[in-house]
């Protein structure tokens, strides 16, 4: 489903990704952990081409998306992205946040888009009473669940989560993690940057540890967390 080969990215001469290799099979959930500045967010942004990598190749569903001939807009439609800061469209209601991509990007009719929005909002447990509200009128957990619904509505082949619970308190994090767990169990292929060990242990098929722009360790979550081989992973799991 997703294959990353030798991905490199620099900002102003500072190398953030130093040749990352990663593979994710269809229906799998992979958790990516690592200290701040390890390059996790940049890696996710490279996958849906929000950031253009300097070197290396990314394949999604067998198609090389880093090829210059590829239509960037079409690739982004295939990949759902959930941001740490939610990034809901402030001027649109919950329902419009979910339908705008369907009508304007996918060209769906209003009725079709509403039907799809209803499905995904129910899947993330956002009740009908909230559909007419604006983002500023929602709690953090509700905002993040709407953001997940907005990405899911586009029917992506891959979901990317960039620390989706780090801006939330433990109770609100729980609401969001429950929804993510449910989606993973349903077989939604996901690459998740998070510090939630319970989530990794319970749902992820594999866990990769990133440090200084490289993946330094990878394996089943229980093994990596309980018996870390690399010094970076040992430091990380002692601290978490």
């Amino acid at each position, binding site marked *: 489903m997703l294959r990353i080969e030798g991905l490199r990215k620099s900002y102003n001469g500072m190398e953030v990704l130093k040749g990352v290799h990663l593979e994710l099979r269809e229906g799998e959930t992979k958790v990516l952990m690592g200290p701040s500045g390890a390059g996790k967010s940049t890696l996710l942004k490279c996958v849906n081409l*929000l950031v253009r990598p300097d070197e290396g190749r990314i394949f999604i569903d067998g198609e090389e998306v880093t090829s210059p001939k590829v239509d960037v807009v079409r690739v982004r*439609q295939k990949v759902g*992205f959930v941001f740490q800061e939610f990034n809901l469209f*402030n001027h649109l209601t919950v329902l419009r946040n979910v339908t705008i*991509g369907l009508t*304007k*990007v996918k060209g769906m009719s209003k009725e079709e888009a509403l039907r799809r929005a209803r499905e995904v909002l129910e899947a993330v447990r956002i009740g009908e009473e909230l559909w007419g509200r604006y983002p*500023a009128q929602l709690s953090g957990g509700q905002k993040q669940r709407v*953001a997940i619904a907005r990405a899911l509505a586009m029917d992506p082949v891959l979901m990317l989560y960039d620390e989706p619970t780090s801006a939330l308190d433990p109770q609100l994090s729980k609401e969001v993690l429950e929804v993510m767990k449910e989606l993973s169990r349903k077989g939604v292929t996901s690459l998740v940057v998070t510090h939630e060990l319970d989530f990794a242990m319970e749902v992820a098929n594999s866990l990769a540890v990133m440090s200084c722009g490289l993946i330094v360790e990878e394996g089943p979550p229980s093994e990596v967390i309980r018996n870390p081989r690399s010094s970076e992973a040992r430091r990380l799991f002692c601290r978490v």
Partner: protein
Amino acid sequence: MDFLLELLTALSSGLLRTVELIAISAPCGIALGALLGALSIYGGRILSSIVKLFTAILTGFPLLVTMLLIFFGLPEFGIYLGPTESALLSFVLCSGAYISQYVKGAIMSIDEGQSLAARALGMTRAQEVIYIILPQALRRAIPGISNEVIYMIQYSSLAFAIGVQEVYSISKSLNSIIFRPLEIFTALALFYLALCTLANFLFKLARRRLRVMESELP
């Protein structure tokens, strides 16, 4: 009372012309300002430089001079516009140039996450600007835009200089015939006050209706 009725009847054609000038030039000026504001940020180096030059010229020229140049200068290039059309064009260009600065500032104040989220959904740059960035920026620019429209109402009296029969021009002519300056110019002042108050009210209404997105958790 009879005089007041006569005065209002005499001024009515001018009143209508002034309202017409504002009703056409305000929305066109706002649309031009939004377009120029967006182009100054998203237009690339060449387009944004052109917009910069355009706004520098139009905000640097007095409105009256712009109007005279359009009315008397354009015929030299084979373009003939009537007084009303010349006044309308100069109002639109001038207010568009000022409004573009408010819109530009408002666009720059929109959180970058909005743009990232739009692109992550697969929107093109044009869709991102039209559906996500501009609607939010225009809401933020409303106070500046409302000031600009109020100025436009007041400056519309300058159109008399190129022969537009708007309310100030009619009042001036009327006064030269019957010489009742206090009554005539008080009526004129009250008319401008009413128009500005109405514009203020409409913009306040718009701000109140659109404020919900800025509100906090109930």
